[in-house]
């Protein structure tokens, strides 16, 4: 029998705000001494009250906007009630029916659109460690992580295979990093994924009558393996006319399989209700637009622009825009390169093929390197002088600017000459000649 997988995803992304979601404790908990970054609010002491972090809310909106979400004019926080030792208050402040962002989408490279149901704001829990103390198995709790802002992004069940899921996740990670709102390091738990998987017969359009949620996935390769495993497991069951059980399973990387984590308790009943301690949010249109203005150029747009502006082949543009810092480095190098008549394409090739370490090599140094290996076939001196004079004649205003002390003007003129000589002169020579002629 042939089946079509129906896969949806819930992703939690920890924001890198300075302080926590509802209190002023530091949100940077990694490697800190246990229980040193808590206060009455995030420790759930009696009488403590939450006050939301504005930065976190704006960043949640930016994530939503990057995923083409609507930003509703009304939003509120709700309490999600459940008991777990790492949940200090016995409830998590989350958003139920009025999230900050809803109804968005992401387009995969195939052109397929993955619907985003919502992106909402909530708080992280404390961290549990399982150890043996005095010969007894115990669980230990550190509340430093309690209250760190989390954005949960929920997709529609639009994925049909693990490859799509992986692409979505990589793109999502890239976007939040571009926005500079999260590190999204999966190994550190800064980005957590929970796919839900079910199968239906080919040609059917209704959602299957069950779904299996898989937890415990902390890398992109695990998610691929876990989904592939689940699809095979469920198909086998369906082949024998057995409907897979609706449950939560965990990925076991050692055994390369998913294991049922279903406890015997009844289905969760979170008893959501509006958070009485936090007034609702009513956004002005102007405010939403003001937040939208903070959106940087996102990877997809940047790639397109690199393609068009620098005539880079698609593949190169994609590599150079994977990380915002690399893209910025490239553009800085292009700017310097222009003066030396070094083409953007050449710079791109250098960066990619020679695997330039952008942390240690300055863009100017890179240009120098490229230039040093270039043999410049120089124009005769009088031809060059003629070109320079032409440039001077046709840029009267710039010349005046230069004479009035604007150094940039000189750079501009050098650039203009270099364009004319098409690489057949050294920038220093041109620069010196210009200075002499403009004396």
């Amino acid at each position, binding site marked *: 029998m042939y089946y079509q997988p129906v896969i949806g995803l819930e992703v939690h992304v920890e924001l890198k705000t300075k302080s926590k979601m509802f209190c002023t404790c530091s949100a940077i908990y990694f490697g800190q001494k246990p229980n040193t970054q808590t206060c*009455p609010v995030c420790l759930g002491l009696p009488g403590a009250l939450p*006050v939301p972090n504005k930065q976190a809310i704006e960043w949640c909106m930016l994530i939503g906007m990057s995923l083409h979400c609507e930003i509703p004019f009304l939003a509120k926080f709700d309490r999600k009630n459940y008991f777990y030792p790492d949940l200090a208050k016995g409830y998590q402040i989350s958003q139920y029916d009025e999230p900050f962002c809803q109804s968005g989408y992401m387009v995969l490279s195939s052109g397929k659109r993955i619907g985003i149901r919502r992106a909402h704001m909530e708080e992280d829990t404390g961290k549990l460690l399982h150890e043996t103390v005095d010969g007894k198995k115990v669980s230990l709790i550190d509340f430093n992580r309690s209250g760190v802002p989390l954005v949960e992004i929920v997709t529609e069940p639009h994925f049909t295979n693990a490859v799509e899921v992986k692409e979505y996740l990589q793109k999502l990670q890239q976007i939040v990093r571009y926005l500079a709102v999260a590190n999204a390091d999966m190994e550190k738990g800064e980005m957590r994924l929970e796919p839900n998987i079910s199968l239906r017969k080919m040609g059917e359009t209704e959602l299957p009558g069950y779904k299996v949620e898989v937890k415990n996935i902390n890398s992109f390769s695990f998610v691929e393996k876990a989904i592939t495993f689940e699809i095979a497991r469920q198909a086998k069951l369906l082949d024998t006319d057995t409907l897979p059980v609706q449950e939560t399973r965990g990925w076991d990387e050692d055994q390369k399989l998913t294991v049922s984590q279903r406890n015997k308790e009844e289905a969760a009943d979170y*008893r959501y209700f509006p958070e*009485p301690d936090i007034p609702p949010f009513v956004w002005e249109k102007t405010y939403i637009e003001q937040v939208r203005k903070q959106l940087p150029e996102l990877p997809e747009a940047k790639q397109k622009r690199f393609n068009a502006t620098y005539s880079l082949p698609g593949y190169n543009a994609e590599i150079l825009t994977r990380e915002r810092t690399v893209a910025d480095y490239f553009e800085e190098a292009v700017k310097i390169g222009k003066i030396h008549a070094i083409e953007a394409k050449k710079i791109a090739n250098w960066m990619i093929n020679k695997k330039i370490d952008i942390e240690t090599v300055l863009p100017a140094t890179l240009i120098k390197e490229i230039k040093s290996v270039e043999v410049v076939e120089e124009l005769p001196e009088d031809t060059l002088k003629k070109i320079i004079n032409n440039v001077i004649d046709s840029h009267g205003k710039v010349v005046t600017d230069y004479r009035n002390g604007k150094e940039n003007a000189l750079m501009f003129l050098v650039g203009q000459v270099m364009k004319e000589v098409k690489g057949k002169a050294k920038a220093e020579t041109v620069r010196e000649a210009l200075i002499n002629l403009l004396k």
Partner: protein
Amino acid sequence: MDFTRLTIAQVRKKLDRKEISSVELTKAYLERIGKLDRKLNAYITVTEKEALHTAKKADEKIAQGDASPLLGIPFSAKDMYLTKGIRTTAGSKVLENYIPQYSATVLEKMEHAGAVLVGKNNQDAWAHGASGEHSDFGPTKNPWNLAYIPGGSSSGPAVSVAADLASFAIATDTGGSIRQPASLCGITGLKPTYGRVSRYGVVAMASSFDTMGHFTRSVEDSALILSVTAGYDEHDATSSEKPVPHYASELKKNIKGLKIGMPKEYFTSGLDSNVSKTVKTAMHKLEELGAEIIPISLPHTQYGVGVYYILQTAEVSSNLARYDGIRYGNNRETFGDEAKRRIMLGTFVLAHGYYDAYYKRAMKIRTLIRQDFDIAFRKVDAIACPVSPTPAWKIGEKVSDPLAMYLADIFTVTANIAGIPGLAIPAGFAMGMPVGMQLLGPQFSEDILFRIGHQYQLTTDWHTRKPDLPV
């Protein structure tokens, strides 16, 4: 002279004129507590050492000419208010050994004002109750008759003011927990507008109803306390930024021409006839003082208790979830019966399949009750009505019938449902027990309520009556 009987306004003069020191005054209260509290049980913790230390510092400031209104004045606090380093129990065994790591904003304001905390008051555990009998530290007795309940949940704070065991007491009112015991003990009790006073650092009962008010011997004192406790707090996102009026000058204005509504739904068959008569007499007094009494209707009043016991218990069930015995306090088995009942009722109304029929519907009727008041306040400046349908009852009378106990809140819950202020003032006696009148006004109209209450107290002496207590 017994200085413990004086109002804050009166004792302030004595302190400033050095007729008495804060240390002497504090000792006088501590001594009275020592003599009487074994019978009354108004205190869970007496903070003698800390009090004397604070009083000494206050005397130094007074000597330097500081005449801040609360400087050196001994007060007590309901055990819902967190006090850093001083045990805070909320009246429950769950917190019997809890020493808070921080203090409530109101307590910090009191400390800043130089007021002297003499102790933490008994109360119904978690502020659940209308009689004081649900305290895990034993019931508090009504000073007017020790066989009677003092009302609740702020039983201890009310009794500590009524029996002169503190100059004033700060407390909480979620469904009537200040106004009702004030009425039953013959003192003045204020429930401010929701958001007027910070809730930070006070054990949460039902967060969208909880208000931080106080008990005093006069309306004048009540206004004085509110001018210290009111105001925006960055730790409480629901606290108001509205400026705090100058209450002291507002209350001096007469009430000629003020329109006071008399809601017919508050004077029905469920109301004790003696209480009805007493409140009507008091309203007649207001008329004599120049106010106009206007009949009004608050048609959804009868649904108040139902709405309240759905929404309040839902919030209670969530607010008490943090008490798991891991970080502080004892485990969940230690909750008393009333807390368990409310947690379960609240869990039920939020549970899958019941939310719409109970919780959501109650939120809608909450809207209707608010609208009743909005409409009424277009016609009148304030409302006068009874606080409690009966005077104090005998200890044990209602303790095994939770519903009967809930119905004692019928005239007080509506103010919490709507978030409006309420002032309870002594209006007379019925069968030897005190009876209060309740004044309600629009949000942030405490100034008007104080004005009516103060003008009433200028021409009556019910608020100066004291129970006979063997010292």
